[in-house]
């Protein structure tokens, strides 16, 4: 079974700031980031789609004791995309010390940044979230 959206293709899309996702032909649920089967119904039949880069913060934390290779403090959050999929990434553009419960429910624009690899990993493009001011 050939993947409809490989990790490499997904990485390229993040790098180009256009989000690719997989829409299930069976239940219409979006699976983002990509994997071989629908996260909801298990179907292997997908249509590749470009999706909106807007989302809503569902939860967050400020990492103050970090793993090797990271410079704390920084914010990690889970964001729900318009299509119902969740992404984990970093909220950027605000002071980590200003992060509080009011962030939950706020709208963000999703972009991407390159995270340098270490001894155990390669360079990887990951989501970043910028607050949309109202």
């Amino acid at each position, binding site marked *: 079974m050939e993947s409809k959206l490989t990790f490499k293709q997904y990485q390229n899309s993040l790098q180009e700031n256009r989000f690719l996702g997989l829409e299930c032909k069976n239940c219409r649920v979006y699976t983002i980031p990509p994997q071989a089967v629908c996260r909801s119904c298990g179907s292997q039949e997908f249509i590749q789609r470009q999706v909106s880069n807007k989302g809503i913060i569902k939860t967050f934390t400020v990492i*103050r004791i*970090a793993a090797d290779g990271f410079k704390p403090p920084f914010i*990690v959050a889970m964001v729900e995309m318009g299509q119902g999929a969740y992404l984990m990434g970093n909220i950027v553009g605000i002071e980590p010390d200003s992060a509080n*419960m009011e962030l939950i429910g706020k709208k963000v624009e999703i972009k991407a940044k390159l995270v340098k690899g270490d001894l155990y990993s390669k360079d990887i493009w990951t989501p970043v979230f910028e607050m949309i001011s109202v």
Partner: protein
Amino acid sequence: MRKVAIAEACMTRFGKHEKTSLELFTEIGLTTINRAGLYPRDIQALFLGNCLGGFGEGQAHMAPFVHSAMGLPMSSPAMRFECACATATVAIRNAALLVGAGVYDIVLAGGVEKTTNLSTSLATRTFAMASHAQYETPVGITFPGVFAMAAHMYADKYNIPLIELKKHMAEVAVKNHYYGSKNLKAHFQKEITVNDVLSGIMVADPLQLLDCCPFSDGASAVLITTEEKAKKITKKPIYIAGMGQASAGGLYVQQDITKAMARKTASKQAYLEAGIKPSDIDVCELHDCFTIAEIIAIEALGFFKAGKGYDAATKRHTYIGGKVAINTSGGLKAKGHPIGATGAAQVTEIVEQLRDEAGKRQVEGAKIGFVDTMGGDFGTVCNIILTA
């Protein structure tokens, strides 16, 4: 399936150890065999849990070396299990399945870990390897970070002011350190106050230092056998009444991380097999790697309704004499958390409780005990129900 029993269960003290992983497990494994009045030649297989041997000691493939050091017969295979923090419980479940199926009659299962020889940042990096390496680890998520996000989601979902939730979380740490103070094998044996928790350094908002379990070294081993053999070995065999295990993907797939769906799935299997319900449980060792983790676990295991378990420690429902005694060993929080050994130590505590051998932290008349171990960020959950 044959009825499966635990004939003996032992653990080292958890904390900081000079000895190698190989030495630690060999010692506790032989102690377990000796206490059962058996010899290494009687053991038909060794299921050894270990996660970080490759990083801490440059040792992968640890099982055959432990096998040799213990003097087990060449014909008794040894193999390593790895399911992050749920490692040893999964090893024990697989041993019980094979004894139940009649493949083996006596298996030694358990685990060992050394984490204190890693720097905090390397330990944090290697623990984070149990998150999704492409979609989650690169954003800098840590294990405290995962549970910190669960705490914020819990406060938001159930509309509990964060400051209130944090006080109730601190009460979980107070309870587990209180029981740790009564356990000579615990990493931390001193009591703490809510104020101690709330004045600690912030690790990952809103989790402070004492919301988190420590990095520990330790080993634990469990002798799994048939009902018939167990009765010959000990006057107090403990029976495996039900087991369950479930798997889930990354947090981006789980989405609502206050629910721990893999735990609901695994515990449902265990309750069904044992034919008992949550209200029948007298004593439970569950996966309190962080204070919020205990709150999420008592809800997912069915002891409390969703959104209602947060103040259980404050109301003393989870103390001995309350609704259900939770983490009488001190839990991961105070007893310590040498990842690959943790599940076997949880089983050891329940075995002691059901044998009425838990001393100052004995739950009077305990007959049914529950073991809950969670690996990674809710990705693996393994549950075992034990009866006297």
